[in-house]
């Protein structure tokens, strides 16, 4: 058992080091932060001064080890443009992104499972076909178009939901939440629908495929033959087994949701890490860009690690394989 864990842990650390190196390389290859810092009409001497001050003249290995040492301690440096600690900025913005991602994931799973089950059981009904066609839109329409359309419908024409921002937010020390205010909840609706749509489609189709396959299996046939009630068969037996792959996909997709949240956050001016990152790209604010990359990689790696560990306990086949080797 421990060898399985250690192998996974070792792989995770390896991935993090590679990501750290790539994000460190950003400092050398992406645009010119010096002009971003000093402005287009600054003198050559001023630029040389700044170049020296932020350490761009030291050799690569010195810069990388300095970087790695700092990152491990949680020090991502100071933003070139905003001149504040990057770790502070990320801590401030993370609650917004995580709340949005959490609500989107929940929406995608709940609605996805319900509709997936429905379309799985009633395979060819008219309503099922409508659901499948509309869900295609969720995958094929770009996120920002869905967002803008929702804004125009609900904010401009109907005037019932806010078009931007997080609404009123209650500060609970380390975390700021929009869940506790009416305006915060209203502000969550459109962005989370926008962000959840593409994942919702995957969940619908995945659950539908799983349901259709499971409903053909022998044990379901025997259960029906035994006379067990239809609802019990569908939900207690079929659905429960069909959910295992959904859990895996969702776990991995939370990472993708965080990545896609960049677009949703830009459309809705949602003050999360995605918007922070996009602004950093415009200004070539490399400390923020590299910190964001490392944070997102860390979240991905952590989630995958947890999924792997959970799988070890849920799926007996892995345990057996591990014990045999």
């Amino acid at each position, binding site marked *: 058992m421990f060898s399985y864990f250690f192998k996974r842990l070792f792989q995770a650390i390896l991935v993090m080091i590679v990501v750290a190196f790539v994000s460190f390389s950003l400092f050398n290859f992406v645009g010119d932060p010096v002009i971003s*810092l000093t402005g*287009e009409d*600054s*003198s050559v001497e001023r630029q040389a001064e700044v170049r020296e001050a932020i350490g761009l003249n030291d050799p690569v290995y010195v810069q990388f080890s300095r970087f790695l040492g700092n990152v491990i301690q949680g020090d991502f440096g100071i933003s070139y*443009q905003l001149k504040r600690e990057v770790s502070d900025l990320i801590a401030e913005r993370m609650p917004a992104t995580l709340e949005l991602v959490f609500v989107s994931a929940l929406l995608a799973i709940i609605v996805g499972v319900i509709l997936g089950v429905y379309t799985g059981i009633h395979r060819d009904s008219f309503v099922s076909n409508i659901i499948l066609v509309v869900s295609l839109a969720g995958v094929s329409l770009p996120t*920002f178009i869905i967002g*803008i359309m929702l804004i125009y419908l609900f904010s401009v024409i109907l005037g019932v939901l806010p078009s931007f921002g997080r609404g009123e937010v209650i500060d609970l020390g380390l975390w700021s939440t929009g869940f506790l205010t009416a305006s915060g909840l209203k502000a969550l609706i459109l962005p989370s629908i926008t962000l959840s749509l593409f994942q919702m489609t995957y969940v619908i189709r995945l659950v539908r495929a799983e349901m259709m396959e499971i409903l053909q299996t022998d044990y379901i046939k025997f259960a029906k033959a035994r006379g067990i009630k239809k609802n019990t068969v569908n939900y207690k037996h079929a659905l429960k087994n069909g959910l295992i792959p959904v859990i895996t996909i969702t776990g991995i997709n939370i990472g993708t949701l965080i990545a896609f949240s960049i677009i949703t956050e830009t459309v809705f001016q949602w003050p999360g890490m995605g918007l922070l990152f996009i602004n950093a*790209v415009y200004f070539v604010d490399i400390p923020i860009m590299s910190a964001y990359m490392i944070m997102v990689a860390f979240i991905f790696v952590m989630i995958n690690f947890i999924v792997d560990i959970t799988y070890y306990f849920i799926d007996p086949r892995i345990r057996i394989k591990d014990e045999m080797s």
Partner: protein
Amino acid sequence: MKKTLSIVLSVLVMGIFSPASANTIKWSMPGDSLTLDPHAQNEGPTHMVSRQVYEGLVTPGINMEVLPQLAESWTTTADDTWIFNIRRGVTFHDGSSLTAGDVAFSINRAKTAPSDMVDLIKSVKSARAIDDHTVEVKTDGPNPILLNQLTQIFVMSEAWSKANGCEASYNWDAGETSYCASNANGTGPFEITFREQDVRTVFEKNNNWWGNHYTHNIDKIELLPIKNDATRVAALLSGEIDYTNVVPVQDIKRIDSSMGHAVKMTPQNRTIFFGMDQGSAELNSSNIKGKNPFADKRVRLAMYHALDMDAIKDKVMRGQSVPAGIITAPGVNGHTAARDKRMAYDPETSKRLLAEAGYPDGFEVTLDCPNDRYINDEAICVAAISMFAKIGVKVNLDAKTKSQHFSEVKEGDANGMTSDMYMLGWGVPTFDSHYVYSYLFESSGSWNKVNFSNARVDELVAAMGVETDLDKRNAMIAEAWDITQEDVTYLPLHHQVVNQASKSNVDVPIRMNNEPLFRFAKVN
């Protein structure tokens, strides 16, 4: 916890004490101020915010004229010495009084690295307080545009800055974060009472402002940055914001036709143009080897005549541009309507000139263009390329994000290759041609990437920098423009147009540099 408490308290206080209807303007623009420290970033939105809460010795008025602000009057006692008389009875938002010491401190702080204002006031050698209400500023030689430059230098409280650890604008070596970056203490008509970067900044009327006899009826301003153009327009149309000074051109008609909204426009002090490398022996991206087509003035002239800026104005800019004949905008000293009259769109003449110059079959070259800096920048380049194709010049487009574009134009790309042809836009914050000359035409100009070098122009630029006799100086400026316009050093495209949109009952005067002055605004 503290924030919750203060939110609850301020709601209570506002409920009890606020007038029946507080006039609030909800203002939006794509970017936010990068820092509340008025010397740390020489950048548009950052100064727009500082301008509402901080003040300078002098300030640009609505029509960009230099007006006294914290200085009531001034004299020059020698070519390099200025004496400013500081206004009495002015207080900072924290209640302390303004003295000449604060002014001297601020000027010295602004001209010392790591301030971002260093280059702007490098002609200032020293600033000191002679007494509580008099400041002496010494320059390194006569500087006729010192006042224009000082309009961008804001005055901070010396005691407050020192007490809060921001005596210097920012200390890179120590890696410290600055209190002044997230807090402001100025003398201006508004004070900042809430600041959350990229989300919301709240300004409230300063009831102790020295200028309160001005009639403005604004009690509160809320800056709500919205990066996405479509979302910002939607927020305006839905009533969630009242005013924006950045309007995408394709939405102007839509907003104008909405019953409760109005759009204003005015030419901006920024001109867009193409630069053509005329100094290099050979062009990096061209199929012509051994000589440089752009070195021949006839070729540059041919490129000029190939551009139909009226068509671009109509189709690409949707009417929101002013075709230009000179690369500086109306309102800048040195600009005249005669100089700004564009030469005719005449592709036949272009082809003839090219043939005369020895390029009857045209040539190839690459155009470097930003895609997220100027209004419709990439679209303009695409349109221009099709126009150049008509005269036989095959232009390849290399469009990229602004951080890459400007670093490549300024320093060359990853292989050290310089740009043969590029788009650039130049704003003139001092409203004087010298600013344009020192960067774009002087042989050593830091943005003169067309390798233009003319000894007479260099002489004139040096002379106009120190000439205090206005007539003589204007004659120098005129002569320099004569030479450079004749040379077709740059291809002028158009002056950008500033657009503002607001609710019909919100009146914010529009200005050439797109910087709103809320002390002149009115809510009806």
